[in-house]
C-alpha cells in the first residue's frame, strides 16, 4: 500500500465526522499523570544537540558489568546470528500471517519454531507461542478447566509471584477458583473436583521438583486431574528431564532466555505445549504443513482455526488471536544456533557456575542456603547483612541479586541469586568478595 499522509484539511474533515474537536482529544483515555508535560529540552534545538542531550541523559543509567539478578528474566548469551536474521525486514515488519499464499516464509519459521520446542520439551504439540510465561500459565489453567468441565485449579507455592497475579486475574474473569497451597499439603486439598495442579520447577526459589514422583502421586488417585508445569528459564532443559518424559499434560515456559534480551523485563515469549490428545483445546495459533492436492509441493498454513476466537468466539478456549512471532523467531534461531549439544553446554555452565557460587557463599560464616531441594542456576540465601551485600555488589559494578522481600516482606534478609554462563570467573570472585565484605558493612547514617 502507498504511504499517503493526511493534510490539515483531511484531518479537519475526519475530526468533524467523528465530532471530536482536536486530535489530542483522541488520547484522553491516557491518565493525565502519565502524560509527560515537559521533556526538559528547550524549543528549537537542533537534531545533533538533542542527540547530545539524550546521550547525556542516557549516561546517567548505571550499566553493570555482570548480573546476579534473575527471578524470571535472565541474562544469557545471544548469538549474533539471532539479531542478524530477525532484523531482516521480511521478518521484522511482518504481520500475522493470515494469508498463507503471501506468508510462506514466516509460516515456515513458525512451523520450525513449533518443531524445535516440541523436540526440546518432548511434548507432542507446541503452539505458535503466546505473549509470555505468565499468560501461558493462566491460559493453561483455563484450558484445563474447559477440558475437565471443572472450575477448581490448584496452584503450588513456588510459582513466580508475578505469574500468580496474572493467573488470579485470568481465573477471576473465567470464574475459576484458584486454590494456592504448598506441595506438602497437596494431598489434603486434592479431590475429584480439581481440574488441574499447576506448579513451577525449577521454582521461583530455585528448587527442582522430582516431577515424575509428583505426577505419579497425583495421577494414581486422580487420573483425570491435569498436571501443568511452568518454567521461567528453560535453558535448564539442556540438563533436566523434559516434561514429555514426566507425564506433564501441559507444559508452559517463559522463552526470554532463548535469544531475547532482558530489556526492561519484556517482551517475553510464551512457550505453550501439551499432549496431543488436547490438541483442539490448545489456545492460540498452530501452523501446520500440508501438500498440494495435485502435486508434491509442500506448504505451510494456519490450521485448526475453528478453536480460535475469531472463528467462534463463544466456544474458543482463549481470546488470543495472535502469536509472539518475532520473539519466537529469536528462540528458533537461538536454539538452532546452539543445537542439542550447545544447549547442554549452556545448561551445564549455568549449573556448574551457580553451584560454585552456592558452595562458596555457604562457606562464609553467617550465610545460609535455604534450598532443601536440588537447584539449577538460582538459589536463595539468608544473609547476615543484606544491605551490605547489595551495596558492595553495586560498588563492584555487579547488578545485585533480588531481595526476596520485594515479593515476600517477611523474608527480609533473603536474596535470590542467579548465575548464568555470562558470569565470568572474575565477576564470580568479586561477588564472593562482596559477600565477605558485606558482613562488616555498617549502615551509613543520615545524620
Amino acid at each position: 500500500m502507498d504511504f499517503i499522509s493526511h493534510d490539515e484539511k483531511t484531518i479537519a474533515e475526519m475530526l468533524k465526522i467523528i465530532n471530536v474537536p482536536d486530535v489530542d482529544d483522541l488520547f484522553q483515555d491516557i491518565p493525565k499523570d502519565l502524560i509527560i508535560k515537559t521533556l526538559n529540552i528547550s524549543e528549537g534545538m537542533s537534531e545533533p544537540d538533542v542527540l547530545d542531550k539524550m546521550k547525556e541523559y542516557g549516561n546517567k543509567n548505571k550499566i553493570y558489568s555482570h548480573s546476579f539478578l534473575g527471578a524470571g528474566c535472565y541474562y544469557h548469551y545471544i548469538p549474533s546470528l539471532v539479531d542478524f536474521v530477525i532484523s531482516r525486514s521480511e521478518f521484522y515488519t511482518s504481520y500475522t500471517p493470515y494469508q498463507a499464499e503471501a506468508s510462506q516464509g514466516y509460516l515456515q519459521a513458525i512451523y520450525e519454531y513449533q518443531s524445535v520446542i516440541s523436540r526440546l520439551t518432548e511434548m507432542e504439540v507446541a503452539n505458535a507461542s503466546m505473549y509470555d510465561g505468565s499468560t501461558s500459565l493462566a491460559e493453561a489453567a483455563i484450558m484445563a478447566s474447559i477440558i475437565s468441565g471443572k472450575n477448581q485449579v490448584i496452584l503450588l507455592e513456588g510459582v513466580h509471584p508475578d505469574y500468580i497475579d496474572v493467573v488470579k486475574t485470568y481465573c477471576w474473569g473465567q470464574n475459576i477458583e484458584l486454590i494456592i497451597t504448598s506441595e506438602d499439603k497437596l494431598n489434603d486439598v486434592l479431590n475429584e473436583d480439581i481440574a488441574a495442579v499447576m506448579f513451577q520447577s525449577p521454582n521461583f526459589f530455585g528448587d527442582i521438583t522430582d516431577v515424575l514422583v509428583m505426577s505419579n502421586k497425583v495421577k494414581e488417585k486422580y487420573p483425570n486431574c491435569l498436571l501443568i508445569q511452568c518454567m521461567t528459564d528453560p535453558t535448564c532443559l539442556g540438563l533436566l528431564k523434559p516434561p514429555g518424559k514426566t507425564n506433564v499434560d501441559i507444559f508452559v515456559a517463559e522463552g526470554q532466555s532463548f535469544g531475547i534480551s532482558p530489556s526492561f523485563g519484556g517482551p517475553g515469549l510464551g512457550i505453550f505445549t501439551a499432549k496431543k490428545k488436547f490438541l483442539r483445546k490448545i489456545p492460540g495459533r498452530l501452523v501446520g504443513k500440508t501438500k498440494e492436492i495435485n502435486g508434491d509441493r509442500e506448504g505451510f498454513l494456519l490450521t485448526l482455526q475453528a478453536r480460535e476466537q475469531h472463528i467462534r468466539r463463544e466456544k474458543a478456549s482463549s481470546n488470543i488471536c495472535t502469536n509472539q512471532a518475532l520473539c519466537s523467531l529469536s528462540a528458533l534461531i537461538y536454539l538452532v544456533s546452539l543445537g542439542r549439544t550447545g544447549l547442554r553446554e549452556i545448561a551445564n555452565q549455568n549449573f556448574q557456575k551457580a553451584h560454585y557460587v552456592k558452595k562458596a557463599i555457604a562457606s562464609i560464616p553467617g550465610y545460609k542456603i535455604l534450598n532443601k531441594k536440588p537447584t539449577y542456576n538460582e538459589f536463595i540465601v539468608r544473609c547476615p547483612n543484606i544491605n551490605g551485600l547489595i551495596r558492595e555488589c553495586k560498588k563492584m559494578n555487579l547488578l545485585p541479586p533480588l531481595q526476596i522481600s520485594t515479593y515476600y516482606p517477611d523474608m527480609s534478609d533473603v536474596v535470590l541469586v542467579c548465575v548464568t554462563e555470562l558470569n565470568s570467573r572474575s565477576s564470580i570472585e568479586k561477588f564472593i568478595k562482596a559477600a565477605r565484605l558485606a558482613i562488616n558493612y555498617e549502615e551509613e547514617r543520615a545524620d
Partner: protein
Amino acid sequence: MNYEFPDNLKYTKTHEWVRLEDKTATVGITDFAQHQLGDIVYIELPEKGANLERQSSAGEIESVKAVGELLMPLSGRIIEVNSTLVENPELVNSSPFSSGWMLKLEYTNELEINDLLSVEDYKRIAEEEN
C-alpha cells in the same frame, strides 16, 4: 435433491435424525447436513451418563469449512456414544444414518416426541435451506 431421507426416522429443524426405540433414541445428523458441512474432520461427543436438556449442545462436529453443534433432540441421559467416530469422523459423511450414528439417549419426557418432525416436514425444511 439427491439426499437420503429415510422415512422410518424422526427429524429436527437443526438437522438431527432420531431413531426411536423403547424408551431410548439413537441420534445422528442427516445426509443433507453432512453434505452441507463437507468433509468432517473431528467430532466431540458428550460423556456417557450425562443428563442433557432438549436443544442443549451434545457435541461438536467440525468439518474442513465449518463447525456445527449436535443438539439434543430430546431431553435425556446419554447411555452410549459412538466412540469410533473419534478416530473415524468421516463415517458421518459416508454413512450418516448407520455407522455414522452419534449417541444413544434414554429420554425423560415422552411428550417431547410429538415435537419431532416427520420425514415430509423435514424434507421441506431441507429444500428451503438448499
